[in-house]
């Protein structure tokens, strides 16, 4: 069963005090929990948050399911999100995403067998002037080519 670390619990408690409405802490709490649960929100995460925050599971689930940044299934150690919306598509982003999938022998939205990578094709990340780009976990990599993107992934520990 998932449980927040002491540090995570302190963060969530702080968020509960931070806003005018307690419910506003749901998104920040989901972020804290996702980081501590290998990058995704499992049902037991929601159960635990519900108890810690004293907010109904249904309410947390509603928020969790609405937003794309909360992962609904396990993702690789490196979650590689390639923006494929128009400006990026005009600059070869879709081919870049396909290249990464081909090299890593994995389909988009699935995890590599070694658990290191998940390649996702996502919508606009606000990096249209430096397309194509990818977000690896929290970090943006811009002005990529299929080769440079693959080299970046190979260089990750």
């Amino acid at each position, binding site marked *: 069963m998932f449980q927040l670390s002491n540090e995570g619990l302190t963060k969530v408690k702080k968020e509960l005090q*931070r*806003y*005018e*409405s*307690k*419910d*506003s*802490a*749901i*998104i*920040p709490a*989901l*972020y804290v929990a996702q980081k501590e649960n290998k990058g995704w929100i499992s049902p037991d995460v929601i159960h635990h948050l519900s108890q810690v925050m004293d907010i109904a599971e249904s309410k947390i689930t*509603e*928020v969790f399911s*609405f*937003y*794309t*940044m*909360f992962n609904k299934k396990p993702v690789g150690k490196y979650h590689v999100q390639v923006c*494929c*919306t*128009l*400006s990026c*598509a*005009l*600059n070869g982003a*879709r081919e870049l995403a*396909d290249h990464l999938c081909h090299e890593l022998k994995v389909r988009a939205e699935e995890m590599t067998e070694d658990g290191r990578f998940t390649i996702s094709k996502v*919508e*606009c*990340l*606000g*990096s*249209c*002037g*430096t*397309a194509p780009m990818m*977000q690896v976990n*929290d*970090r*943006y990599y811009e002005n990529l080519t299929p080769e440079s993107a693959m080299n970046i992934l190979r260089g990750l520990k």
Partner: protein
Amino acid sequence: METKLLSEHYHQDDFQNLAGYKKQGGYQVLAKALKMTSQQIIDEVKASGLRGRGGAGFPTGTKWSFLPKNNEPRYLLCNADEGEPGTFKDRLMMERAPHQLIEGMIISAFAIQSAKSYVYIRGEYNEPIRIVEKALREAYEAGFLGKNILGSGFNHEMDIYAGAGAYICGEETGMISSLEGLKGQPKLKPPFPAVQGYLRKPTIVNNVETLAAVVPIIKDGAAAYKKFGTEKSPGTKLFSLSGNVVRPGNYEVPLGYPLKDLIYKLGGGMKPGKKLKAVIPGGSSAPVLNAIEAERATMDYECLAQMGSMLGSGAVIVLDDSNCMVDMLGNLTHFYHHESCGQCTPCREGTGWLNKIVSSIMEGRGRLQDIDLLVKVADNMKGRTICALSDAAALPVLSFVQKFRDEFEYFVREGRSKVRGISYAQMHH
């Protein structure tokens, strides 16, 4: 040539810090503003003709004056949920000049007599969030935020809220729902946020660039600001140029600037051997212009509206002649289908059907009547929903089909792209 009213110092690394910002006169405008009355600031912003830079282009001073004239607590929300495809200017502003935004926000908050504001930043923007957080700490330490700011008796608290991935949260009432800890679904207007917004309290939602623009307006006055731009579109604007141009990037120019100069002079024009085919002038929701229209368009609210498009967020997406318009429309219908919040039937179902129909054409299963069906579905999505996402999804469809119909008909007849000569399966293995 750019006209850098806002972005003059963006290339200086230390402009990101309080010390560097103050070196360029930072927070002196706040000191000036706090000696004015709230009404004087509102009047100045009204007189400047500043219009919302996020997409809708609503006059900022007018929006502020919708607040009830009483002592009810009110909130200021900065919309930094930049998500309109093609737009990356707010990100630049937050990364390069977070204090410019904060100063603009404190002045605006004083104008509307708000004691609390939030910067709602899209969750993917980790770097801007980190930078604005740091700038907020600096501003608090320096006494620009908190109690009795610069001895004026004005109190203001400012905080950041990170979104979690939803285009719809850029819609002001969707953003309010999200900040309240709900799904980011828009709310029916009226009541407008100025009357009943965040937690049902009067709330003003302004875009990053709008709030930053308040600084030069109060610094030099409305008359100086109005020297830039056109009569109905005063001031400068940051345009995010992307797509098939040699030098994509953010460029600040006066409103009314010729689109062709933006593309060819500032953006370096098309890549070798490529010709201009189409331009989406105001973010993906703005109806597309063909090359001939693009040649004569000027970047202001009235010219683009007259041409049946819109200035929107100022995101200029340039397409060259190597692109298949059916494929590109498919890219957009996929986006809107993904981003519909699902609340209103015409949008939830309509965006799905638009995407299905374009996909079926691309996959070689299209019929000629499907092209008219696209138009019919899109027509039925306009003006029938709580927010503008449904219209935003319909407009590209209508303009793409109207202006590039031959490409859609060719795809149906031949099962392959007129431009690229290959089928969808060959395009995307």
